[in-house]
């Protein structure tokens, strides 16, 4: 009380409501108002991190060259919490997520747009770290960020940083026909251990002390999809990165599109010991947990092992396995064979035990 009074009477601080400090270390509402600070943020931090010929013109729209093949277009928003987690961060996630969506749909990813929604007070050094990671992911997948937008919302209206990326790519023939064209006998392949991303984010968010700590699989599928298509392209029916809802959600969607039953064998599915331990402890099923660099591939009968050999020759998909096959429609759309006993139905995950994982 004494101190307070002293402050009130003993010292006057001039706080002009319109003045802006010359340098701030965090995002302010002024950064989003289109003035000098907005320009400074965009020029000195964003464009300088993502440098390319399209961004340098700084027009409101990117003018892109004509393509030979048809265009594929996708968009995704990223709200993961925490922003940094073992194996990745929101920046790399925002690039790989969109690149993977294009790649598994048969396109060569080319251009991305980038929208940042920043919360007032967000530290600029953290923004720099995210942009650095974003730039590195874009460079490694040879995509260019050609347009973007930045908005700042008042403190409390967002959680630090939200990102949206849209991506465009050129479809490369032969484009996999898609899950509606699945046939009885087709084989199902998973490109690596499942459930790593969801578990890594959960462990980081809740500060769960697991040893080993699960690492996110956050990464690009572009190389493995390209290799797979070059080698057995005509025998691939469909590919999908198994993000939210995990492998179970992809299988459900494919079963629905094809009207067939998809059967998998739990014992064939690669799961790291970290993910398995966490699943057992928390009562979660790795089949329901999100991935960010692991895909499911359906290939024609007899091509499963060949797909696995191609994938296993690449370091990022060294643990690929055939996990099941497509059957005539039974009573349920997706079945799983577990340790003992008969096949069981595999349901969609219900609600999410792990909110905001991507």
């Amino acid at each position: 009380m004494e101190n307070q009074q002293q402050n009130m009477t003993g010292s006057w601080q001039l706080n002009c409501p319109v003045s802006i400090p010359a340098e701030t270390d965090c995002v302010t509402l002024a950064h989003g108002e289109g003035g000098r600070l907005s320009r400074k943020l965009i020029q000195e931090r964003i464009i300088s991190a993502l440098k390319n010929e399209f961004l340098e013109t700084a027009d409101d729209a990117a003018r892109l060259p004509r393509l030979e093949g048809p265009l594929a277009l996708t968009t995704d928003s990223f709200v993961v919490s925490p922003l940094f987690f073992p194996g990745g961060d929101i920046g790399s996630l925002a690039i790989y997520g969109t690149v993977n969506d294009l790649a598994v749909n048969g396109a060569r990813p080319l251009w991305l747009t980038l929208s940042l929604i920043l919360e007032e007070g967000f530290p600029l050094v953290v923004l720099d770290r995210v942009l650095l990671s974003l730039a590195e992911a874009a460079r490694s997948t040879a995509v260019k960020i050609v347009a973007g937008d930045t908005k700042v919302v008042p403190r409390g209206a967002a959680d630090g940083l939200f990102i949206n990326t849209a991506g465009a790519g050129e479809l490369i023939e032969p484009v996999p026909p898609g899950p509606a064209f699945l046939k009885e006998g087709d084989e199902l392949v998973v490109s690596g251990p499942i459930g790593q991303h969801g578990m890594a984010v959960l462990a980081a968010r809740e500060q769960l002390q697991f040893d080993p700590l699960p690492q996110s699989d956050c990464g690009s599928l572009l190389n493995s999809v390209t290799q797979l298509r070059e080698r057995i392209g005509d025998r691939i029916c469909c590919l999908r990165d198994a993000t939210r809802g995990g492998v179970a959600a992809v299988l459900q969607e494919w079963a629905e599109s094809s009207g067939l039953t998809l059967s998998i064998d739990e014992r064939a599915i690669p799961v790291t010991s970290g993910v398995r331990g966490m699943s057992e402890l928390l009562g979660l099923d790795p089949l329901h947990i999100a991935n960010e660099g692991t895909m499911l591939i359906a290939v024609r009968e007899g091509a499963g092992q060949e797909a696995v050999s191609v994938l296993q020759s690449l370091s990022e998909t060294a643990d690929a396995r055939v996990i099941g096959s497509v059957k005539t429609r039974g009573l349920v759309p997706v079945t799983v064979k577990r340790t003992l006993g008969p096949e069981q139905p595999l349901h969609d995950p219900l609600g999410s035990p792990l909110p905001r994982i991507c």
Partner: protein
Amino acid sequence: MKYLDEYRDPAAAVRLLDEIRRVSTRCWTLMEVCGGQTHSLLRHGIAAELEGTVELIHGPGCPVCVTDQADIDFACQLAKRSDVIVTSFGDMLRVPGSQGSLLEARARGGEVKIVYSPLDAVELARRHPEKQVVFFAVGFETTAPATALAVMQAAQDQLANFSLIVSHVRVQPAMESLVESPEHRVQAFLAAGHVCTVMGYESYDQFVERYQLPVVVTGFEPLDLLEGILACVRQLEAGETRLENCYSRAVQLAGNQSAQDLVQEVYQIADCRWRGFGFIPSGGLSLQEKWQQFDARVRFPDCGLPVIANSECRSYEVMTGQIKPPECPRFGKQCTPETPLGAPMVSSEGACAAYYRYAGV
């Protein structure tokens, strides 16, 4: 994975299954008490493999399922207050009270948080002195030591903004109430391994003596369960009624003394209302007089609500073994995990949810 794979070995499981079939001269009716065991039996296909040899009745052992609706309604009422943060374990959030679940309360603006340990709720109270943090303490004797520790920690830190809704339940009185009922068909019990890890199993001596039923302390992995079942069947075939421990790698006769001390320091045995069962004498725990300041019901005396019971749910018959979940006319139709009529369809350890997820194709 160590301590998992060796207890899930399919070849060993097949040997145990064969042995159970070989020893049985008739179909015996066993009850597994714990919801974790129910899930393991269905997930690993054991219940289906033993059809005709052993009938497994899925007991009341999911604490989330038996939590009184009045407690859930009370928690939801508290969540509506702008000065309160309600915390609990993830499962509890989805269970409907008579007027919605905590998850719905959160969607309508209430502050409801999942915690992984009761001590996280204490930490939350420490960080938010401007809020009242209420921990919804559910669970059997296995979780009670951790919530007791949270109360003691809050007292030590002199936190005036932390309190508990105590919904702890005790296994043995429920088993007693079950076998006292004239409709019961149980011939032997698989006792819940995790509860025995904390409480030991000495107290089952009297139970076995009094009701003349075999009790076998059993674990959760497929081989643990099969060994427990085999031990029950052997006793039944030999006309014996004994207390046996088939989970000795985790359970000792006297249990975990320091955990029991914590519970005794903070709680006292109390009569308790179990959802689906009704009133069970000595069926739960309540805070002792000296810890009353941490009782949310004392701190918020005006937040109770009358309970509107749902008469369509037949969970009592499921939990007492009178019907199997699929025999309920609403199972899988009006009642699914997305639209549960009763708690056993909601909780990840509930018998109805287990059937919905794992019942054979």
